[in-house]
């Protein structure tokens, strides 16, 4: 506990029930203007379709609503409070200018079906972001339509399938390394491909011999995260691409870890055919407690005929328009054009950085991860000594001897004022601690983190029970997840 006070201390926080528990008849937080058209007889207009009662929807005042949600908010940890080192999630600072520009009148309130002639502002934003993401990834074309990373994966694999189909054989399976995100195999299943696992070699990279042996004309693509989920750059990436391409397969890159590459190396230059980006990771759009995300998919020319409709095109007079006539398209993956509000924020982020800033962001992210690796090496087991890019993966091997596992250490970290790292992932590292500081952290904040982690390691030796029972300082202690799943209570119900 010796460093506990340096980062955080306890503070009173407000209790707050469910909003339904504050409700009573007659309270209201709304006011409508007087009706400027005749009143209507709802019975006459709706007949049997009229709703008579809105059940237990709450009735509360405005100050109660403000206090309710403000109190709830204080129970959350957030990037705005401190380091949020969730590996693979890239929890970087979310610039506030992004939020401001997303709320400018014509951008916030543009209707998706307003005529193109009065939508040139939005279309220009789509075009600029598309061009800049193509430049950053080194690819040839892009679709912004997918709503999140996993949705982008699905879109990418749909294009892969359409490509193979156009050659007469859709093929049967997708190769996925054992270190991959769970969305990869789940996505392959949605596109009706079988999943075949690919083992990692002792360096934590794709085993080339295994790939060579497993690659054949049934394989549609390899889905690879690079740097992979160990934070390791796949050094043989071009050989991997060559092995795939020799048998007509494609290389799909999961761009979840693109924050390690921007401005330094481009996937399009090392053999990738199709990849998705997570604008809510690399390009600073807020995670918002689990969305909205945005998962653009960048592709090489060979896949361009298959992109979802509509496709943004430039008219001869320079104005922008949507082209809906794409006979080879995989179709739509979402209504309208994607999570436009996230495009606005991502473009503002790129503008605020420029070429120098984007490069430095990547350098700082990698530098920070290596600084943490150096600081904790020896205290925690480092299962792979391969050089680290933007995130570092330790294991709980040393602490497990005392019965303390990665989740316990993570929970204890909460008492020290930090959000936990990613636990128990990737699956190839038993008891993984996956730490990604991002470029946003200062050396002072990282020093506090390293101190906290070292202090916890000492506690494991001296008083493991304190760690096993953590967290001690939160509103609620560890919650009974088994009971939650066994007898699910998924909604509030009025007491009868």
């Amino acid at each position, binding site marked *: 506990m010796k460093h506990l006070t340096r980062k955080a201390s306890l503070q009173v926080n407000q209790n707050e029930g*469910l909003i339904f528990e504050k409700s009573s008849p007659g309270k209201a*937080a*709304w006011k409508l203007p007087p009706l400027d058209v*005749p009143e209507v007889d*709802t019975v006459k207009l709706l007949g049997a379709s*009229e709703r008579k009662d*809105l059940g237990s*929807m709450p009735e*509360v005042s405005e100050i109660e609503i403000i206090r309710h949600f*403000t109190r*709830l908010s204080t129970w*959350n*940890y957030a*990037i*705005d409070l401190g380091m949020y080192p969730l590996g693979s999630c890239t929890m970087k600072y*979310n610039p506030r200018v992004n939020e401001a*520009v997303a709320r400018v009148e014509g*951008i916030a*309130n*543009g*209707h998706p*079906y*307003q005529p193109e002639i*009065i939508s040139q*502002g939005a279309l220009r934003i789509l075009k600029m972001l598309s061009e800049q993401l193509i*430049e*950053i990834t080194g690819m040839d074309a892009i679709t912004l339509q997918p709503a999140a*990373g*996993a*949705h982008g994966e*699905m879109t990418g694999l749909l294009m892969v399938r359409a490509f193979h189909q156009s050659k007469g054989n859709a093929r049967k399976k997708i190769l996925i390394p054992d270190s991959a995100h*769970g969305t990869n195999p*789940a996505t392959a*299943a949605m596109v009706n491909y079988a999943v075949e696992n690919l083992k990692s070699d002792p360096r934590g990279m794709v085993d080339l011999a295994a790939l060579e042996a497993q690659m054949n004309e049934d394989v549609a693509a390899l889905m690879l995260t690079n740097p992979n989920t160990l934070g390791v*750059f796949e050094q043989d990436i*071009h050989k991997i691409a060559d092995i795939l391409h020799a048998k007509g397969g494609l290389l799909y890159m999961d761009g979840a870890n693109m924050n390690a590459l921007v401005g330094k*190396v481009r996937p399009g230059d090392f053999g990738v055919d199709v990849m998705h980006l997570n604008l809510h990771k690399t390009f600073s759009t807020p*995670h*918002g407690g689990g*969305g*909205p995300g945005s998962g653009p998919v960048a592709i090489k020319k060979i896949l361009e005929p298959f992109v979802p409709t509509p496709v943004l095109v430039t008219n001869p007079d320079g104005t922008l328009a949507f082209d*809906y*006539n794409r006979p080879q398209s995989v179709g739509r993956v*979402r209504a309208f054009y*994607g999570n*436009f*509000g996230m495009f606005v924020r991502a473009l503002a982020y790129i*503008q605020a950085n*420029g070429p120098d800033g984007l490069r430095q962001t990547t350098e700082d992210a*990698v*530098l920070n991860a290596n600084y943490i690796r150096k600081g904790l090496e020896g205290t925690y087991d480092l299962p792979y000594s391969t050089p680290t890019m933007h995130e570092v993966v330790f294991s709980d091997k040393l602490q497990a001897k005392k019965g303390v596992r990665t989740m316990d250490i993570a*929970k204890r970290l*909460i008492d020290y004022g930090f959000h936990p790292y990613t636990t128990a992932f990737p699956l190839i590292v038993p008891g993984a601690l996956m730490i990604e500081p991002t470029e946003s952290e200062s050396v002072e904040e990282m020093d506090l983190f390293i101190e906290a982690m070292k202090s916890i390691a000492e506690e494991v030796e001296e008083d493991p029970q304190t760690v096993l029972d953590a967290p001690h300082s939160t*509103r*609620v*202690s560890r919650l009974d*997840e088994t009971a939650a*799943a066994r007898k699910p*209570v998924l*909604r509030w119900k009025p007491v009868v």
Partner: protein
Amino acid sequence: MLKAIGLRSVDDLFAPIPAEYRLNRDLKVPRQLAESEIVDFFRERSRENGEGYTSFLGAGAYAHYRPVIIDSLISRGEFLTAYTPYQAEISQGTLQSIFEFQSMICELTGMEVANASMYDGSTAAAEAVMMAVRLTGRRSVVVARSLHPEYREVLATYATHQGMPLTVTGFGDDGRLNLEELEMSITAETGCVLIQSPNFFGTIEDVASIAEITHNKGAMLVVSIAEAVSLGIVEPPREADVIAMEAQSLGVPLGFGGPYCGVIATREKFVRQMPGRLVGQTVDKQGRRGFVLTLATREQHIRREKATSNICTNQALVALMVNIFMTVYGKVGLRELAKQNLAKTAYAAGEFAKHGKILFGGAPRFNEFVVQTSEDSKAINRRLLEHRIVGGLPLKKFYPELGNAALWCSTELTTRSAIDGAVGLLHERPAQAAKERPAQEKEKKEEAAEVAR
């Protein structure tokens, strides 16, 4: 820091990347901009994006008033800059608010359980259909032609590789589903029927009859709701097995089509086949109430290729907007709000009827109506645009059988004078200026291509 790590230069950090792939030049993106320049840039784009126009567009994206406290509250960094609430002890704020969202969606839709949100209404509908197919073990799907055409397109994309054949079923003269055709469309292989209510034309479906026909044939009924404000005064489709809703109209900005907030609601017995995140109530070691993400064994990070869906990120912050909106209007306000929409639309439809034909008059509608005119809808809209009015959505591209028809929408924000102004311009028909012809020809070609497909 470099010294601490034992390196001489930042380039050493990138040594693992083979030299031939490293980028040895600047990215070709514009130079760094100052904050003031960024703000100017987007203000400029805003001016080119329909700023200051009066709009009569709906069709799956609705302009309703957004109480200011929505943005005050969702801008709190503790909501805005938090991750998915995996670490429950320091995420109770997000978790409790999602639990409240799920509860209110249940109240609003008449269902027993609702998830934490989906990407949007279109993907929620597609996922709800896949869920019903898993539950019934029957793979084919009957889809209403009066479902939002873009939702139909999304479903077609999702269904292609799931081995789910789609059959489209039509609507009658009153805009409602043709029940005889529906009955004939459902076979022993039909897993579910997907309809929308209020449907794409704003017409409220006879859900009870549709459900009866569907259930009698052993299929499930999935109802898509694109205009959630309707639920303030329109009876929810309680007879449905699954509801897939777009909650945008509850406090989410139009935002040129996204981000929006889909959500799936269903009966308790089907919950283990429901995709997406779920928050459940439980207790901590001391017996205090708390909330956690639950039933994760349905999800991709546990089940990988056997998961119910690949969905990971949802729309949490947008769901929070919806949550706050529902809380502000509540039990009484939601009804009064819906009633104003109904009144404005009844007035608008009455006025438009003086200069065009209102289709589908035989059935109740909420806040949209279809106007058929002798003049081409796009020509009318071009005229309105000169007066900074965005007219109804021309339907020829989606429903060529309706001729010159457009889908108009009025909400509580549509003023009487705006309606009167648009109606006044509807019957006025000046000679077409010569310069407009090339644009019209291009549109005709596009329409021909659409129809051909």
